[in-house]
């Protein structure tokens, strides 16, 4: 299991205002803020399922991280295509 500091960062992506944007624009500062070790920085910078799993990131939080950083994935896991069918009997 990855250290809590890694999970705390990922958990913050959907909760801490501006964190996701700062991860894109100033990754190093965010990693500093959460006190990440070098191997943790490399894994999160890589962001692949293999890198995250190798670090021991919780499976659900792997999903959070990839959803937050990959709009294409978010475009797959969505109800948008069914919007006109929901709410109708």
């Amino acid at each position, binding site marked *: 299991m990855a250290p809590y500091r890694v999970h705390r960062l990922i958990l913050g992506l959907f909760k801490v205002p501006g964190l996701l944007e700062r991860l894109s624009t100033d990754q190093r500062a965010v990693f500093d803020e959460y006190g990440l070790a070098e191997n943790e920085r490399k894994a999160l910078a890589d962001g692949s399922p293999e890198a995250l799993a190798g670090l021991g990131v919780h499976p659900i939080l792997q999903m959070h991280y990839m959803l937050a950083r990959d709009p294409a994935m978010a475009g797959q896991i969505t109800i948008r295509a069914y919007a006109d069918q929901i709410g109708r*009997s």
Partner: protein
Amino acid sequence: MGKIAGAFATSHILMSPAGVEERAGRIVGGMKEIGRRVAAARPDVIVIISTDHMFNINMGLQPPFAVGVAGEYVPFGDMDIPRVPFPGHRAFAEAFVERAAEHGFDLAKAEELNPDHGVALPLLFANPERRVPVVPILVNINMQPIPAPKRCLRLAGVLRESIERDLPAGARAVVLGAGGLSHWLNVPGMGTVNTDFDRKVLDLFAAGRSGELGALSVAEIVEQGGNGGIEIVTWMMAAATCPGAPSEEIYYEAMPEWFTGMGGIALRL
């Protein structure tokens, strides 16, 4: 004295239908059919037993079970689910927590809960007008120790007692379990759908024998159904509020493209 007017279980995700249009259509059709039957049951309260995906229950605080006691909920909004408020049922939620305490279950109460897709997606079909007040019960399957299936079943028995004794006379409750079926999420095996396991589970529910799954350990269910398949405890709990009742299969589709088996049932009360 209240009564259980309907009990159902369903998977709780949808993904892009691209390339799987026919099966996705049958799944949505099944979810809509469950919604029609929920409406036909004319519930005064919907109790939904599901899981949170670490948008609410995270590592900062890790209760095995949590019950929403708020008067209103705003969905978290994952999966593009509209963040439109729906009502809670504070009185019944509080009464259930009190009754559970009498039975040795110290349940976490949640005043602030932004239900993610685990709760909010099934309700898009089961409570589309957002008129029926809801009590969300969350089973924490994401942190160790995961509540044992037999313990989940005991809690479901308390839920039944609470519906019968704590709701006003004539009040009607629908119980809806949400999650599963077999899936492996971001662990080896991801993309696998264990149709044999799913079929075994569905057949046990159909025969009114889902209680037998309570003899399985968490590890045994995870081995056969995946780290996401343990969500079937929510189905087991819904069925356990109507002990011995057989169920009708509303839909089942193996969806490896969505990394999961998808299913839905209605208990025959």
